[in-house]
């Protein structure tokens, strides 16, 4: 990875006459046009439609009562108590999932960076949760693990209590008692492998000679980690955090499947609240406006993400 260099210089392209007419330029572009139109249609048109819909008072259950309301849907989005709570929940959910999975991913990556028999197998097993479909993973957590009757957690508790002679253990209702942690843990399980992969790539790109020099100089393992490895990993960590944030902000499956946004609206995040607006209230205008706000928020985060990636590559090339 450290040997990534600029492509070798080749002969400069032949100089073309600069005086091409606009018409001939367009003729050359014609074969590409269908692809361009297709791209615009599939990527931009739905968003434009959403923008337009977001300015309408439009409830599909009231046909004939659809009219332009300007920005009142946006006013609603910014003043609605439920949406504000949803923003807060989204922030809590995203921040905790991303930070915990980065920390766990870092630990696992450090372990996997060492040589040991069966490393390939361990790596494959650790990556597995990331490959499970989100809905399937949520169902697995809801039923196989959290269920108070037949779930793994209470089953284990029962087993432990029986070891000590009790009839059965306490029945803990995990999802209702700890709704946000329940969602967070299931998402951390899914996202830790992703973080681990990114950090592992960073660790393996670490120059061996520097580490060896540190060892020769008598630096402790902790000091080496703090002063050499961590600064080296900084950009990988940032990349993981930003990419993870973009994806986790959009979490729907886990909330829908495990808690249905509840109890109350304690785990209702923005995507789930928008879903409720769209499919329970059928207020297309409000849902579209909320969607636009989320997109704008995501664009801000994504811009930072792209900058980080860009700086990462610059660093690689200049090394």
């Amino acid at each position: 990875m450290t040997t990534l260099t600029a492509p070798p210089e080749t002969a400069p392209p032949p100089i073309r006459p600069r005086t091409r007419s606009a018409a001939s330029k367009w003729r050359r572009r014609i074969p590409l046009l269908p692809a361009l139109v297709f791209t615009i249609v599939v990527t931009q048109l739905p968003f434009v439609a959403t923008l337009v819909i977001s300015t309408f008072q439009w409830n599909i259950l009231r046909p004939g009562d659809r009219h332009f309301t300007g920005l009142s849907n946006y006013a609603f989005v910014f003043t609605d108590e439920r949406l504000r709570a949803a923003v807060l929940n989204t922030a809590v959910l995203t921040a905790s999932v991303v930070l915990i999975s980065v920390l766990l991913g870092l630990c696992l990556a450090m372990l996997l960076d060492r040589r040991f028999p069966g490393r390939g197998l361990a790596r494959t097993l650790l990556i597995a949760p990331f490959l499970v479909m989100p809905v399937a993973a949520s169902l697995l957590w809801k039923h196989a693990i959290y269920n108070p009757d037949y779930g793994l957690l209470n089953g284990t508790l029962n087993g432990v209590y029986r070891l000590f002679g009790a009839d059965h253990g306490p029945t803990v209702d995990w999802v209702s008692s700890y709704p946000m942690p329940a969602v967070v843990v299931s998402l951390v399980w899914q996202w830790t492998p992703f973080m681990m992969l990114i950090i592992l790539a960073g660790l393996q790109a670490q120059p061996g000679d520097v580490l060896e020099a540190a060892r020769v100089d008598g630096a402790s393992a902790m000091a080496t980690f703090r002063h050499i490895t961590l600064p080296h990993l900084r950009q990988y960590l940032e990349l993981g955090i930003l990419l993870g944030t973009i994806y986790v902000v959009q979490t729907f499956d886990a909330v829908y499947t495990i808690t249905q946004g509840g109890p109350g609206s304690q785990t209702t995040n923005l995507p789930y609240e928008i879903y409720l607006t769209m499919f329970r209230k059928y207020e297309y205008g409000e849902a579209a406006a909320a969607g636009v706000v989320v997109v704008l928020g995501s664009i801000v985060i994504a811009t930072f993400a792209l900058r980080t990636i860009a700086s990462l590559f610059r660093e690689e090339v200049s090394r």
Partner: protein
Amino acid sequence: MPTARYTVIAGAAAIALMATGCAGAGGSDSSGGGKSINVLMVGNPQMEDIAKLTKDTFTKDTGIEVNFTVLPENELRDKVTQDIATQAGQYDVATIGAYEVPIWEKNGWLHELGSYADKDTSFDKADLLRPMVQSLSGSDGKLYALPFYGESSFLMYNKHVMKAKGITVPEHPTWQQIAEIAAKVDGAEPGMRGICLRGLAGWGELGAPLTSVVNTFGGTWFTKDWKAQVNSPAFKKATNFYVDLVRKHGEAGAAQAGFTECLNAMSQKKVAMWYDATSAAGSLEDPSSSKIAGHVGYAYAPTVETKSSGWLWSWAWAMPRTTKNADAASKFMLWASSKKYEKLVGEKLGWARVPAGKRASTYDIPQYQKAAGSFGDITLKSIEQADPSDPGVQPRPTVGIQYVAIPEFQDLGTKVTQEISAAIAGKTSVDKALNDGQKLAEAVAENYQK
């Protein structure tokens, strides 16, 4: 007018997106002389049966091909509402419930079906149960959907447990009696709880049994002149009773338990009683999935102030106005709701699987009486007693027992039950949940007050 044009473009784009999303649901052939129809239906066992039986019987006799799309209840509602409301016209027939019929009829989305039923003499419209006809009729008194099967609600209990504890469950219990019994049988077997009551948020989940309890405690969502009553004393008393009962003697994980979870808890002997839909009985009596098949007792829906309190629901066939295959579609609906079809199911798949609860004659069939001996009679009487136009102690603005038949109720019911579900989980108080709910209900009521 630019805005109008943008609306058209946006609408067209939205519809195009939905249409492409729906493509592949079944090749519609509207130009083929009405020989093929698309049917969208909910994925309940009775619907899976008809999907199996249609080809060798209906299609063979009439030459009409039927393409079925089967979806779980929530997805079905999302899809059918989108399809019909946007006039996308993908489906010729859709299963909808008693809640949707009056609302959609008012919007002009549904074909009138009474005249088709009248023309077909073998259909015997007069045989349909009166509450079914009432709940599937529009404001003009005409029939807008044909019932496929119907249900009310009742109390189911584990006979072994009651016998061991020496308890006799009355045939017409009060909620107070049920609460006492629940306390006595709680823990009758290791890990067994007294009663299962739905706690999962949703207007069709927790909303259904809770509203039937509110009705019999003297409460209502709205008065006749649209005054919101969600934090009225009767509504509060009923909700407090419900939440207390579930918290003290209800199933484990109550705030996440809906129909399916309760069915599981009851059939696996995790609870001693269960108040829910009469259509659950068929599954409880199935020895392949239920540990208590054959020793389930049944009692009428518990009451407090009203004479009866069972709810009323039916899954029914409706025809969107957009269909181009009205004749073929009506033939299919009439066949699916006919006596002939019930007989076919009985003979081919077994009499307990007959889509019952819609016709009086079903309960006269000797084979059905035998198969549904323990619950058939009480189901029929519960349905007959249900009065969707007057289910409580005061007049109502809409027809319906366990819901309010206005478009806003899906949202209102879902949000209020979310809060009550949180109260069941111990995360909030009933008072706060209902005071918040009252605000939402008042906002809805404003749309209707004159």
